[in-house]
């Protein structure tokens, strides 16, 4: 299975809309929640339609539109999105109204906008697109599942161009709940000091990243995705190492031949030690990067990592801010993105320069 990234667009807690800059001016945050930098939505969305869209839907539509324009594509053959938590703002709004009004007087807008597939649906409505439209909701496998489906459609020639996206938002309530159960840090830190913090829990975040994946290269191609894989609850670090090595081997690579591996360090020492172990063992010869100090932890954070990797391969640049260990001086040809969520969901995405 092969797929070329021919266009991309992202909205994140960093400046991502300016094509002339690639993470060279970085925003740092002193609260444990990294929120996206809101674009001027009116530049992208008709104000009449805008009023019914919550933040996450706006983000999805904006980043999808940027990716489509970047690829010079009018209509995709499929729209495939991944989201771990979906439209949380409208879900909370709807559920709170149910509680406050004793399950009566429910307004339609929040309900319509609260379903997980709202982003995919709104993009299709905006484009007038009646093609295959699917949303995957599998926690931290959501984006990877959407990616796998996209790659299979391209491989089976069921589509020539797929609009693929990964998107999640953080709300006040979900942030408080996840902080209380220990998923997010309690005391504030500076986001750029993510790796030095000893508290348990990650930094919370949100982002939206969309890609036009195609079965043909164009002048605008960023990179080729050569493989993706997921595995669930490995029994030991040795099993994790073996699964990663096997995945690379299937793709005719070894850990040593990778130029860069992008790891999902999220600041939680309990689970970051898994990445540290891999850095000291199978990845001991390749350069290492991380990215969640820029976007925070969320179920589809690997979509933002893919945005970074694709831009790095096209521009032959690895932004200094993501570098953790520089062991190879050459510009990257192969990049592996490895992410895991609390040692439960593990995912791999492999890219190469074209």
């Amino acid at each position, binding site marked *: 299975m092969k797929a070329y990234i021919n266009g991309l667009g992202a909205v994140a807690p960093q400046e991502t809309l300016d094509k002339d800059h690639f993470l060279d001016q970085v925003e740092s945050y002193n609260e444990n929640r990294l929120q996206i930098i809101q674009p001027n939505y009116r530049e992208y969305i008709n*104000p*009449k339609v*805008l*009023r*019914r869209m919550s933040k996450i839907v706006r983000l999805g539509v904006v980043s999808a539109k940027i990716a489509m324009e970047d690829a010079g594509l009018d209509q995709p053959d499929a729209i495939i999105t991944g989201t771990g938590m979906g439209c949380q703002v409208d879900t909370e709004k709807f559920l709170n109204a149910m509680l406050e*009004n004793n399950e009566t*007087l*429910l*307004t*339609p*807008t929040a309900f*319509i906008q609260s379903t997980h597939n709202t982003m995919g649906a709104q993009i299709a409505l905006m484009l007038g697109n009646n093609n295959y439209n699917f949303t995957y909701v599998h926690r931290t496998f959501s984006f990877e599942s959407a990616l796998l489906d996209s790659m299979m459609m391209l491989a089976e020639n069921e589509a020539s161009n797929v609009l693929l996206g990964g998107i999640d938002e953080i709300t006040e309530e979900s942030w408080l709940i996840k902080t209380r159960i220990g998923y997010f840090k309690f005391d504030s830190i500076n986001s750029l000091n993510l790796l030095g913090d000893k508290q348990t829990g990650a930094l919370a975040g949100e982002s939206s990243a969309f890609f036009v994946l195609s079965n043909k290269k164009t002048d605008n191609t960023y990179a080729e995705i050569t493989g993706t894989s997921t595995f669930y609850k490995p029994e030991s670090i040795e099993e994790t190492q073996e699964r990663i090595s096997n995945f690379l081997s299937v793709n005719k690579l070894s850990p040593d031949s990778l130029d860069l591996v992008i790891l999902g360090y999220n600041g939680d020492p309990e689970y970051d030690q898994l990445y540290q172990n891999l850095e000291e063992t199978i990845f001991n010869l390749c350069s290492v990067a991380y990215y969640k100090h820029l976007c925070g932890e969320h179920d589809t954070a690997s979509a933002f990592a893919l945005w970074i990797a694709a831009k790095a391969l096209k521009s032959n640049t690895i932004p200094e801010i993501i570098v953790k260990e520089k062991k190879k001086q050459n510009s990257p040809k192969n990049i592996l993105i490895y992410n895991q969520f609390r040692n439960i969901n593990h995912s791999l995405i492999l890219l190469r320069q074209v």
Partner: protein
Amino acid sequence: MEELIEQLKVQIIEQLNLEDIEPDDIDPEDPLFGNGLGLDSIDALELIVLLEKEYGIKIENPKDGQKIFFSLKSMAEFITENQKN
């Protein structure tokens, strides 16, 4: 009546998230749907809920909706009439 119309303007702007519209932009006699304020069928549902929630008025016959929600003025008249009863 004028006070009620001003109150309705604020409530409608908030409930329907009419981001670019100020209360003074709405002419009480202009149609709410179509060429006037440009509302649609989902907004109609929101307005039905607003009437019930804020004024305790239920619309018994859906056919009356077109007349009641023609303009802000007609809405205010309907509220005044039904609150008296």
